[in-house]
């Protein structure tokens, strides 16, 4: 059998991720790089790196799905699909019993319900604001002079939590400034910020409900403090992928594979 390779390229606001799979769905390589100011260049660079890692060339690729907010800038893609569908399919591939996907991305968050085949049934997206997203954490990490790893330390979830009442990033940042001025311990502020994101996600989850297992995707899934709080709030254990940032790209690669298989169907009839 001729070797068939499928690629998903997810151009997000913060990172560009590429996943390459073979005809059986086996992952051959995955890459995450910062998107920077040019989504198109980031896609090219990430694609080349992923090819190199998998020891493949562009000519050997069968189909490519572009996804993410910069999907239109991926000129070498053979198809494009929204990140919402891609995250559903990606989560299903990793955890087949997933019924609900929570994706906390760089500039938006989504809750997606999928069926037993990974097909999207319903979704909701946060509204026109960075609250409850990766960007929110980035802004706050900057303000607190912590790096993102420090912001996710599980030690931070112990003890008191400072009240952060604003759901708006700009107002929440002012609250953080006031708390710092009052010498509130940074751990408490971090805890308060994580709680604020969790509350935001919670309201989205309740608007469409939870079905089946819940898989958390997006870079924020690395934040162990936030994951613990979210699990506590939802009363369940979340599926956390090994590479939560590449789930959309992985879903894209599987969608490319599925589209290719479908394109063959009439010929085999």
């Amino acid at each position, binding site marked *: 059998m001729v070797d068939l390779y499928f690629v998903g390229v997810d151009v997000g606001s913060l990172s560009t991720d590429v996943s390459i799979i073979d005809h059986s769905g086996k992952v051959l390589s995955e890459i995450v790089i910062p998107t920077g100011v040019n989504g198109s260049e980031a896609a090219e660079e990430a694609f080349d790196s992923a090819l190199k890692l998998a020891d493949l060339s562009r000519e050997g690729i069968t189909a490519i799905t572009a996804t993410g*907010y910069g999907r239109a800038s991926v000129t070498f893609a053979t198809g494009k*699909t*929204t*990140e*919402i*569908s891609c995250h559903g399919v990606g989560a299903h591939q990793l955890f087949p019993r997933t019924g609900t996907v929570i994706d906390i991305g760089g500039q*938006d968050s989504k809750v997606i319900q999928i069926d037993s085949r990974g*097909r*999207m*049934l*319903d*979704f909701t*997206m946060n*509204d*026109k604001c960075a609250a409850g997203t990766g960007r929110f954490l980035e802004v706050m990490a900057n303000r607190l002079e912590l790096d993102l790893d420090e912001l996710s330390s599980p030690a931070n979830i112990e003890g008191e939590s400072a009240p952060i009442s604003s759901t708006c990033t700009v107002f929440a940042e002012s609250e953080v400034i006031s708390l710092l001025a009052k010498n509130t311990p940074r751990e408490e502020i971090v805890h308060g910020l994580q709680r604020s994101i969790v509350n935001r996600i919670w309201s989205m989850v309740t608007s469409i409900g939870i079905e089946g297992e819940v898989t958390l995707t997006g870079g924020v899934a690395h934040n162990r403090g936030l994951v613990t709080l979210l699990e506590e709030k939802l009363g369940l254990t979340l599926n956390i992928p090994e590479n939560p940032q590449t789930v959309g790209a992985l879903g894209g690669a599987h969608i490319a594979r599925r589209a290719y298989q479908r394109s063959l169907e009439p010929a085999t009839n």
Partner: protein
Amino acid sequence: MIIPDRSEYLKALAQSGQKIMGVLPALYPREILWAFDIHAAEIWDPPGELLHANAHLQTTICPIVKKSLEFILKEPDIINAGYLFPHTCDSLQNLGTQVKDLIGVSLPVYTFYNPKGSFNNTTTKYYQDILKNFQSTLEASYGPLDPEKLLAACVLSHNIDSHLLAIQLARMTDHLSLNNLEYFKLMRAQEYLLPTDYLSLLEQVDILDQPSETPRARLMVSGILPPTSEILEFLDELGVSIVADDLLAVSRRIPKFPMDVPVSPLDYLTDRFFILPSCSTRGGDLDERLHHLSKLMNASQAQGMLFNMVKFCEPELFDHRLLVKTLREKSIPVLTLETELESHISGQDKTRIEAFTELLFEMVSP
């Protein structure tokens, strides 16, 4: 079929000496205005930036009210016979009072208080009383109303409705070769064309003998106004057709079924009002509205519902939650977009729409 541009058409009409009244949304007895030779130019979403209106209104007032006030404050020379404020919602009613008492526009300001609630003896009597009052108010300025002219206006209105009903049906069954943008341009042209011109336009609409190509997905839309042109074009690009609507600006102003040719204007106007589809702005019964929506969805085979919500629209938001819940319980996919009547579609909304259509396509694919 060429649909004249709204502002050019109205300018030319005003220059020709036509009496033109600016009418705010949504339900009013257009036939009475026509019988007085007054043209109703409806003001829903006038273009232009908000510069002065914000100084008079709270931030939580809907953009239709804000944009209307901005338009009125500019004292457009196309409006020469005054403004009519139907009681569609509290915000519009307040605007009517404000414009008259506080802002002091130079043209006359009229109000029309539609009955809330469904058809019964009290609402019927009330509606007939306000029709008569409205007529008397206009008579005070324009002289006695000619009953023959009122009957002729009702017949014209009946004729327009009959065409619109046929076009709606053709849309639901793919017997119309208009894309989303063309369809809603046609439906909304009644907001500014003279009724005779609008009727001629409707007469030109080609209803096909055979269904045209089936769209990739079929959608129904609910709310106050259709989605913006950019969204309609985007849906066209994606191969999604809006096959039915529950929009205040469109279908909620068309009787649910054909009526007999008018004989008595008062009875005709009353019957017509009460057989309009149920609407949040009339305090209609929600079960009745749900029933109507599911009938439309079945008839048009729509696979999903798009709620195009005007931000801060209280009457619509009041019903929206329960409508969404009920549709979801029936496994009907629902997408809600919120609009401030901006002309550009945000990247997030584009993704929402695209993801929603992917969901619909998955439903129809094997």
